[in-house]
């Protein structure tokens, strides 16, 4: 017997079942099909303007910094100002996101390649107001490594993509990728990387970015 068959047999023996009981199979199929929602905190159930404000407050609480701009045309200027204030070079690592590529980047350069040591730019799939969380998905548009390797990570998110809770993100992912499917990697990011392992004080920039800059576009 294979290890798989043995483990399944052990589990079934422990539960006193055969695995072919119709009622159990139905219970599992139903749950997988309908994905019932449990308790969803009231905190995020707000209208769009309040939701954006909550997202911002929660993201700042976990030490991200947040800027808001009125439209796509204003993103580049905001990024440029941020880099200048931080004394960072005007070159950004980015993937092949067509939305980002189409923005007017006067004076700034977007390049693919290793983000070790430079700032990187990504576009979020969405964001969750409940906990100030950005949601990024893998792919050539926004490579996952950009989320972790650069010392500074700048993430653009559309105000309309800020939702109240994680459950709404699941619905949107199912809409985009199909029921039961997921992008290879989904990253929930809430603030910059941190560790309290040394000297028992919290420090930013453990393995991931020391700075997380969020730019919210629209909704003004």
């Amino acid at each position, binding site marked *: 017997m294979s290890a798989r068959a043995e483990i399944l047999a052990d589990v079934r023996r422990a539960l006193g079942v055969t695995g072919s009981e119709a009622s159990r199979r139905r*219970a599992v199929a139903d749950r997988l099909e309908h994905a019932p929602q449990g*308790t969803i905190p009231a905190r995020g159930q707000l209208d769009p303007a309040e939701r954006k404000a909550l997202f911002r407050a929660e993201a700042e609480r976990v030490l991200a910094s947040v800027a808001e701009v009125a439209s796509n045309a204003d993103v580049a200027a905001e990024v440029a100002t941020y880099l200048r204030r931080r004394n960072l070079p005007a070159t950004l690592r980015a993937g092949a996101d067509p939305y980002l590529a189409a923005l007017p980047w006067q004076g700034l350069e977007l390049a693919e390649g290793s983000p070790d040591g430079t700032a990187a730019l990504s576009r979020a799939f969405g964001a969750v107001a409940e906990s100030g969380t950005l949601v990024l998905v893998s792919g050539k548009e926004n490579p996952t490594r950009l989320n972790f390797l650069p010392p500074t990570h700048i993430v653009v998110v559309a105000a309309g993509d800020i939702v109240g809770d994680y459950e709404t993100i699941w619905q949107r992912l199912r809409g985009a990728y199909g029921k039961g499917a997921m992008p290879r990697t989904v990253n929930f990011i809430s603030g910059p990387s941190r560790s309290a392992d040394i000297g028992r004080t919290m420090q930013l920039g453990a393995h991931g970015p020391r700075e997380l800059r969020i730019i919210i576009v629209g909704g003004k």
Partner: protein
Amino acid sequence: MNAAQFTRRAHLALEDKQLQTALSISRDGFTAQRAAAVARLPEFDSLRDSARDIKAHTLAHLDLYLEAYEKRVTASGGIVHYARSAKDANDIVVSICRRHGAKLAVKGKTMIGEEIGVNAALEANGVDPVETDLGEYILQLRGELPSHITAPAVHLTKEQIAADFRRAHRDLPEGRDLTEASALLAEARAVLRKMFLSADIGITGANFLVAETGTSIIVTNEGNGDLAATLPKVHIVLASIEKLVPTLEDAAQLLRVLTRSATGQEISTYTTFATGPRRPGDPDGPEEYHVVLVDNGRSALLGSEFAEVLRCIRCGACMNHCPVYQSVGGHAYGSVYAGPIGAVLTPALVGIENAVDLPNASSFCGACESVCPVRIPLPKLMRFWREHAFERGLVSVRQRLALNLWGFFAKRPALYRFATRAAVRVLAKIDGEDGRLRKMPASWTASRDFPAPQGETFQAEFARRKSMGRRS
């Protein structure tokens, strides 16, 4: 280390001043942070019910969820392996490494990895396993076991860590300044970054496995596990079979209670959902994605009176709130799992005959159960182990005598009342000023005070109140 000598190690821990300072800092920090996070979320208790129910439902249908999960992993291009024992799991990991000619494996934090001793298995086969969680990395340099689930190096000072780094990072300039924590962090980050970029294999654990999508979930604050899952060409997920949850919705319920219970965070900095290997057109991600599903005693637990312990999501809250753990720290338990969860889980994994002290390492105050996010009745399960130990004659002669003596009195109410009343009077006489006893036989008070009995025995008091109640 083994789980058999709790008492001896506990004594050593109580003498260790540095450990005691570290413990008090982490204890006060974690409990206060959890309380603040709970206070911020009115739905917290309802989420705990939800979390308990989800885990109970999943365990009751575990065979079917395992099958569903495997189907989704396979559909996304990943490979699921099954391991009944620690040895089987290690053999699978080693054979994957061998096939790739791997020399270096970067590791995210994995409790099951520690449970099965995967590092030793890798080393024995020419693969260098490097822990990348900063706390775990430091412990690995020191050759120590973690003392805490979420704060593994909580017992070490900056100075100790600086000395370890000087010893281990020989290629760096000797005169460098390592006095600040920030310098230590920067050095560890730089050393480990090189390893991330050159490792052949990334090994992580999983906080949850999602049957609906074939996804493994890890939570980190550093971003280390996430890099281990992204950069090397092979990602191996080690997970015990009870990590399954049905859907993404279910995972969200559990995530909401996990981090709040662990560190008081609303959510960890990074929550990473990995599903299969690199897709066509992906510029990064592993070329191979393996999941090793480990039983190692779980299916046996599932059919026992200890089944509820399988709901555990390893948040560490029961330790942070345990007066025994707070006094002696994690190493005293001599096992990967410490605190109340260790006291229940370890005897199941290594046999009660090898861990007979652990279920006794409790004052039965109930704090662990009252904070457990999945409502595991830890004191009840510890009591079951005590009964097992007693039935199997594993309890010391002295303890047996004491219990038999108590049993003798308990069966004779009049004698019991007389004896306890006498004891109360004696204790009240040796009381300190403040109603605390600091010296007692059997060294009870070496590490804690004992409230001196005030007034009467419980039975006398109860009888008095009952008659008062009748009169009114």
